[in-house]
């Protein structure tokens, strides 16, 4: 029996050392990199979770990796599902684009003042619900292809929608001189803020920050006119902050 142990014991030490090396060395990083694959390709959480690993002590790394199993399963998978759903929705919106453009708001030339006012309210309500956006090419109000939910990833198209909303608010305000619906702006602001969390390239993110700064600026003036000075101050502060971020 002793001979057997002596005979087989030679490999125990190297295997133990290798296991320790794997467990406290490359294995946590390797496993974590596998886990973060559950997130969408351009999700910043992929880099974030891995980067956090390398400031931890060796003992804490294993615990961190196990914790990220839950994070990646719940947050990563849901982000991926949402991304897929948005892409499918985008595809359907492209297919039905012509039909959607046909359901435009009637032109101003055909309207009486009363109709114009009703249109204004309808447009504001549509913007508030995120149901329509201004198509920069045709100038028509068209159904928002992403509806009101912010996508997990954003491109320049999403930012253009937000910029168009800002232009629309400004145009409505300038044309009717009666301000615009605060709740409509709040919805667009909330959506813009959600989009800030989405994955995007740096130029897109900067453009988004600029568009959102513009909306906060509008919201600031709207609040100011309504006598909500504190709220106006908040909006102007946020606009300034976003504009600074956009400029860096």
């Amino acid at each position, binding site marked *: 029996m002793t001979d057997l142990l002596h005979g087989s014991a030679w490999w125990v030490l190297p295997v133990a050392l290798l296991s320790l090396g794997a467990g406290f060395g490359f294995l946590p990083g390797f496993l974590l990199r596998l886990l973060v694959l559950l997130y969408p390709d351009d999700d910043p959480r992929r880099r*974030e*979770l891995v*980067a*956090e690993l390398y*400031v931890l002590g060796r003992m804490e790394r294993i615990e*961190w990796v196990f914790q990220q199993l*839950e*994070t990646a399963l719940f947050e990563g998978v849901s982000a991926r599902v949402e991304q897929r759903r948005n892409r499918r929705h985008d595809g359907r919106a492209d297919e039905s684009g012509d039909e959607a453009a046909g359901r435009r708001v009637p032109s101003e030339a055909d309207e009486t003042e009363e109709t114009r006012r009703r249109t204004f309210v309808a447009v504001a309500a549509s913007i508030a619900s995120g149901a329509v956006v201004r198509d920069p090419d045709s100038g028509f109000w068209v159904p928002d292809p992403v509806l009101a939910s912010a996508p997990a990833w954003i491109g320049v198209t999403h930012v253009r929608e937000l910029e168009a909303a800002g232009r629309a608010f400004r145009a409505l305000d300038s044309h009717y001189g009666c301000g615009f619906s605060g709740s409509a702006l709040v919805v667009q602001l909330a959506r813009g803020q959600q989009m*800030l969390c989405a994955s995007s390239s740096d130029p897109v993110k900067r453009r988004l920050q600029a568009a959102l700064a513009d909306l906060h600026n509008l919201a600031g003036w709207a609040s100011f006119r309504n006598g909500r000075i504190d709220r106006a101050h908040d909006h102007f502060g946020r606009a300034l902050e976003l504009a600074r971020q956009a400029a860096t």
Partner: protein
Amino acid sequence: MRRTRALIGVAVAIMSDPSGRHWGYELTRRSGVRSGVLYPILSRILAQGWLTDGWEDPGTTGGRPPRRYYELTDAGKRELGALLVAARSDARFRDLNLGFAR
């Protein structure tokens, strides 16, 4: 945003250093909230505009990957402060240390 123990814990951790940079791991430790709950909360707070995020300068990290940091915005200081003040009168959070939320 729904007031939960986890959200209050994260708010306490962030508001303990309102002008500093915060990191995911550091926040899990200080708030006692596990990362599977913390990160979705951070996303929601970011979406509200109460936090901004950024990445460390790779030149200062000594070869390790740059980490993502979170900083409170002015609106975030105000809103999280108000959240903590409200939490002080809520029996559910009595055992949490909310002493600085004045």
